[in-house]
């Protein structure tokens, strides 16, 4: 079936014509044979009637001449198909009989009651012989229908000639159909193959006529035109998008450059402002110190108190300026990556804090062997800030607890600093890392509001991120990753 499906169309056409013709021939042959069989009896009966009329068998019957009758039957026997024959007298006795040499024939001993007996192969006819209304006797003739092979052989030559003629007609018809049907289809198929192979939609097929193939060809051409148009439009659209993208990229690069320039200028400005602010602040601090030391005892108590407040404010401003400069440095300085032992770093920071405030009782839990790849100086600043915070917010606890360690979350290594301090309300978690934003009053916990912003800047520069979890009075945990 598959091979039939894959067969070229003109072969299919040829095959179908030949098959149809052969079938028609077969049907015709069968019909002829069937007709022969069906009409055999009628033809034979007519033949016999004519023969008997011609023989005038009533005459020898009248004169009871069996010799002459035998001769007549012999003559009758030369007719092809007649196998045996006999003539009976009116009383049923045999006057004469003749049996062909073809073999023994079941010749009845008397006339049959029925005029016609057909047993498939043999036809036995019985006819009365009358003269002037007088029954003189009967003639009985046995016919044999030619066997199928003989009849086929008889038709064989005709069938052969017709078959050859059919083949010739089929061939010429195939030629005609090839011109009318197959070639347009072939051209269409070739064009379709070419189009799909080369993606060349400029191909066009010549339209032959206005039949289905012509319509198909026209539709194919129209489809190709439509595809070609679509292709052109698509190409133009792609070109436009590319141009737009290029323009966009150029503009983004330009804006980025502008932004970076602005950022740099802004940082330089804030750095110089911070830096320049330190000189007058040092003067205020220095001279207010001198005033306390040299003229303190001479001042009235309120004046001394005012002076003290000036000095506190000055120092706080100094710290603020230091932090701003640190933040600025974090942003500006070059990143130098190396393996850093975060455990050791955390221990050293915690030790410094414990030394500075010996009265505090803080339980430390620092995991061993936590290392990371990063800038040691910046990571020191980040850890310092996180520990400073933890230390500061656990000061109200009888026994503070601060832990440092590392967790695995999927592929990420997450570092954390956890404390059991004042904690915070998760509703304001967003504000934690914004510069100068504070969740606690200055009177409760001192600070500049720059520490966590600095931590976020450092972590971001390492390609990581920082986030916090906490609850009021239950402590806080700060997590960070360091990216790749």
């Amino acid at each position: 079936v598959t091979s039939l499906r894959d067969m070229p169309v003109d072969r299919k056409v040829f095959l179908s014509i030949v098959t149809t013709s052969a079938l028609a021939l077969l049907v015709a042959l069968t019909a002829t044979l069937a007709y022969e069989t069906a009409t055999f009896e009628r033809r034979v009966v007519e033949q016999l009637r004519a023969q008997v009329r011609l023989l005038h068998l009533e005459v020898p019957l009248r004169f009871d001449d069996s010799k002459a009758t035998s001769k007549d039957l012999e003559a009758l026997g030369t007719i092809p198909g007649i196998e045996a024959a006999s003539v009976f007298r009116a009383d049923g006795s045999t006057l004469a009989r003749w049996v062909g040499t073809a073999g023994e024939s079941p010749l009845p001993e008397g006339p049959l009651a029925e005029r016609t007996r057909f047993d498939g192969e043999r036809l036995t006819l019985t006819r009365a012989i009358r003269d002037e209304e007088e029954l003189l006797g009967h003639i009985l003739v046995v016919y044999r229908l030619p066997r199928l092979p003989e009849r086929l052989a008889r038709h064989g030559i005709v069938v052969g000639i017709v078959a050859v003629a059919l083949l010739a007609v089929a061939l010429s018809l195939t030629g005609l159909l090839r011109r009318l049907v197959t070639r347009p289809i072939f051209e269409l198929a070739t064009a379709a193959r070419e189009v799909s192979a080369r993606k060349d939609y400029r191909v066009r097929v010549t339209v032959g006529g206005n039949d289905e193939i012509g319509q198909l060809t026209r539709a194919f051409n129209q489809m190709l035109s439509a595809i070609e148009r679509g292709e052109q439009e698509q190409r133009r659209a792609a070109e436009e998008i590319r141009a737009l993208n290029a323009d966009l990229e150029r503009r983004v690069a330009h804006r980025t450059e502008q932004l970076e320039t602005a950022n740099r200028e802004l940082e330089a400005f804030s750095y110089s402002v911070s830096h320049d602010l330190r000189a007058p602040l040092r003067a205020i601090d220095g001279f207010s110190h001198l005033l306390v030391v040299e003229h303190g005892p001479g001042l009235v108590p309120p004046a001394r108190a005012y002076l003290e407040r000036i000095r506190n404010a000055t120092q706080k401003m100094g710290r603020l300026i230091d932090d701003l400069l640190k933040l600025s440095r974090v942003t500006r300085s070059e990143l130098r990556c190396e393996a850093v032992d975060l455990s050791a770093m955390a221990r050293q920071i915690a030790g410094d804090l414990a030394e500075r405030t010996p009265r505090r009782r803080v339980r430390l839990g620092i995991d061993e062997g936590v290392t990371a790849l990063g800038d040691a100086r910046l990571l020191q600043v980040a850890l310092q800030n996180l520990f400073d915070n933890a230390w500061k917010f656990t000061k109200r606890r009888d026994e503070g607890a601060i832990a440092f360690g590392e967790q695995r979350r999927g592929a990420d290594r997450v570092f954390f600093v956890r404390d059991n301090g004042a904690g915070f309300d998760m509703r304001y978690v967003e504000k934690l890392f914004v510069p100068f934003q504070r969740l606690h009053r200055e009177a409760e916990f001192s600070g500049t509001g720059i520490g966590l912003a600095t931590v976020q800047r450092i972590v971001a520069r390492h390609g990581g991120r920082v986030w916090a979890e906490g609850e009021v009075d239950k402590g806080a945990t700060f997590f960070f990753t360091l990216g790749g």
Partner: protein
Amino acid sequence: VVLVPVAVSLFIQAGSGRGLAQPLLEHKVKAAFLLNFTRYVSWPTGAFDDDVTPIEICVLGRDPFGSLLDRTVAGRSSQGRPVRVRRPANAREAGACHEVFISAAESERQPDLLATLRDKPILTVGETDEFLEQGGLVRLVVVDNAVRFEINATAAARSDLRIGARLLGLARRVMGP
């Protein structure tokens, strides 16, 4: 139709007997032959007065049939005409007959009788060996226990009688031109 059994019975005896041992049977067959000859012979138009004129079968001289011939012919027709049997007293009277039978017993008178009937449209039927040579038309002869006949076609032509080809075909011998 009524008389079909007569012919049938004749043939039953002829068929089953397969011989003519008895003279009675031989005469029965000969009587039938006399009737049947009339069926295959054409007489000239002048031989009949009109369409319904009967065919006359005459027995000239000794009659060996008795009533057999009359019984055979009774009610039968030939060529659409009724058939009648007549026994003329002499040859002159036989002039109006269509068929004349002369038995073997009349062999002495036979040449004279035949001479009288010569060239007339009369089918003469006889039994003696020299019947045809003496101018007779049909001679009945018994061969192998079966009745057969011989025909003198020349004499028939002279008599203006046309004998059917099929009848000629059955003849054991045909004398002719």
